[in-house]
């Protein structure tokens, strides 16, 4: 057990701190995705290696060697000072790693730089009304007509579709192949004729997602990542990136500290919420669970440095446990506030801009999205505990 990072890393930590103190006045409001201030901040972060750190210089990144500890230190310092860590989104966190791994040189040159600099916004076309947990059964089809794919079908749960410039999309190109081998991964512009976007309002009252309809959408033949029929491999590479990032332990800790602040400042009937032993016990239970998950994450970090460590199961449980924990942390804040906890949107008594109610509902969405908790349990039992798959039911005609 050696949990120190070593003295050479402490020098690096000082550099990060200096950067933060020198530049923190320049950080933009996180809600602005396309403002000049946002793009300038993004460029500043990349130029100093605090974003897109390991992406090669020729594709617009900082070009550093991968160093997990340095990445960890950057995350710790930015989180400690609550500094804007730059843009995320599906183009940056999901498409870029896949292009680096599976894209051709032309695609890397064309897309990565503007994507990481926030000039090109993407959305993800995966789920369909009939293809949720069983994503590989998707039916949106693309047929080759001369030099173009002609796409027809529908996608759902497409966040940022209404503001995205491009989409990365799974379509069925080989209708006669087994379902996992008939899918291709296409890239196309969202202003292509034949695309219709309808907002999907969810339980939070916000437009976090959309439905996207394709009617004879024509896309140049070469806008495919990987070969025809390899789309499922590409998609799985991306889903791996998504699952780990849905419920980061640092954010869970920050939210838990938010509940502590609430409980120390709010009163009911003159009594501080923190003085209620039942509320306090619930807080302590969640703090213990959050501690266990944070330490699990530390073990995963260690395994990326020390390749001999077996952490297969520890990695598989992160999405399930992390999203369920976040939902409960947000729910505790609501419970301890009593009727005030009901407040939402423009209610003058709302606390923390309604974020507790919003996140409580939003995290129920994340428990379901990105592979439901039940799908996670199938994965854990089948791949982690080596239990057999449910027998297939013959399709009735």
């Amino acid at each position, binding site marked *: *057990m*050696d*949990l*120190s*990072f*070593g003295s050479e890393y402490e020098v690096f930590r000082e550099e990060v701190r200096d950067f933060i103190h020198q530049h923190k006045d320049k950080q933009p409001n996180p809600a602005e995705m396309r403002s000049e201030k946002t793009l300038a901040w993004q460029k500043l972060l990349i130029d100093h290696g605090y974003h897109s750190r390991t992406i090669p210089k020729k594709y617009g990144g900082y070009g550093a060697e991968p160093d997990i*500890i340095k990445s960890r230190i950057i995350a710790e310092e930015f989180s400690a000072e609550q500094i804007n860590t730059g843009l995320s989104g599906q183009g940056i966190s999901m498409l870029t790693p896949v292009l680096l791994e599976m894209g051709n040189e032309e695609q890397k040159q064309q897309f990565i730089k503007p994507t990481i600099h926030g000039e090109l916004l993407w959305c993800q076309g995966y789920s369909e009304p009939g293809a949720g947990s069983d994503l590989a059964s998707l039916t949106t089809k693309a047929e080759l007509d001369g030099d173009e794919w002609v796409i027809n079908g529908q996608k759902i749960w497409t966040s940022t579709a209404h503001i995205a410039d491009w989409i990365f999309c799974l379509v069925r190109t080989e209708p006669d192949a087994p379902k996992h081998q008939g899918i291709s991964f296409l890239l196309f512009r969202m202003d292509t004729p034949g695309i219709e976007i309808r907002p999907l309002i969810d339980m939070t009252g916000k437009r976090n997602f959309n439905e996207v309809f394709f009617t004879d959408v024509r896309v140049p033949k070469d806008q495919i990542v990987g070969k025809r029929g390899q789309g499922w491999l590409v998609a799985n590479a991306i889903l791996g990136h998504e699952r780990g990032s849905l419920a980061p332990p640092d954010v869970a800790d920050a939210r838990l500290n938010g509940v*502590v602040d609430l*409980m*120390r400042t709010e009163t009911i009937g003159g009594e501080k919420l*923190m*003085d209620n*032993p039942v509320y*306090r*016990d619930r*807080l*302590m*239970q969640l*703090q*213990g*669970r959050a*501690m*266990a*998950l944070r*330490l*699990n994450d*530390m*073990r995963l*970090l*260690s*395994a990326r*440095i*020390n390749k001999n*460590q077996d952490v297969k*199961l*520890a990695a598989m*449980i992160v999405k*399930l*446990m992390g999203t369920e924990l976040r939902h409960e942390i947000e729910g505790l804040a609501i419970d301890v506030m009593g009727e005030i906890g009901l407040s939402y949107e423009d209610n003058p008594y709302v606390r923390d801009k309604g974020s507790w109610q919003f996140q409580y509902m939003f995290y129920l969405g994340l428990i379901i999205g990105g592979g439901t908790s*039940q799908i*996670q*349990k*199938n994965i*854990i*039992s*089948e791949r*982690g*505990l*080596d*239990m*057999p*798959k*449910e*027998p297939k039911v013959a399709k009735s005609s």
Partner: protein
Amino acid sequence: MEFGLSQEQILLQDSVNKFLGDQVPLAKVRQIATGEDNDSAVWKGLAELGIPSLLIPEAQGGVDLGTVDAVIVAECLGYHVTPSAFISSAVMAPVALMAAGKDDTLAAIADGNHRVGIAFGEAIGARRDAGILVDGTTLSGKCLFVLDANADAYLIATPEKSLYRVRADAKGLERNILTTIDKTRPNCELILDKVEGELISDDPEVYLQTLDAGRIILAADTLGAAQSMLDQAVAYAKQREQFNRVIASFQAVKHMCAEMAANLEPCRSMVWFAGHAFDELPDKKRLIACHTKAHLSEVGKFIAKTATEVHGGMGFTDLVGLHYWFKRIGANRQLLGTPELVRDEAARIQGFAA
């Protein structure tokens, strides 16, 4: 940075597991639990592996290892529901005696020839009919649920959190075994009538440090016991057939097992870290020890129930013997502070409660 076990620690784990698997199988545990045999041969075997001497300095004949090593051993003992004096004689007593600078019996403890039991119940919270009064150097009263009914001496904590040592054969000391659900590690009561005691320390910090260590070891024991229950449940589900299928192919059963694994896996990091923090992070160790004890108690309770259910009716029988693990986990939950009590301490440590 390396968050994991060293090669030496993996070797330690393997050698303890091998000894317990070969020499202390469930049949042996049963003999001890039913009173046909006692745990002295097991303790002697563990002493040959150096287990009672783990934390003791080399000058006193120990091997001077750290709390992470003790945690690993506790995990193995829990996995095999081994009857032993490990928590009291190999961990809590050495921690207390070393913190208090009382080296006189450490060599004998390291050899396994001198077992020291732990009587902390009256400091954690004295019950009706119990309590300890000190008059000069004599102790009178009653201690309940004392760890190790077969010890040669006991460390008794008073309500003021002072530690006294009494000999098991001291004049005026009566010792009665208390039947509990967990027959792998018998508890006793001590009834004291003006028993001569030796003040080991009147510094509450010595008591608290010893308590922290004990809580971490109980958590580690639960980690091992729960892992064994999960392993047994998965193995059983893979061979038990109903409706012409192994029951491991039913999602209802798979999800029970996945929930157990998902809850247990982070506990491994937590327990290891608690051991590390005990030695290396003085500012944080008490909070971490409290959370680890409470969290493992909760996860252990869930797994004890769920793993039994996966076994169906067989899980409920003495024949399969799963109940030894169920009861071991149940005992670890109640000993040295129940989860609610320990979480209250966690809140106090952070200034959340007066």
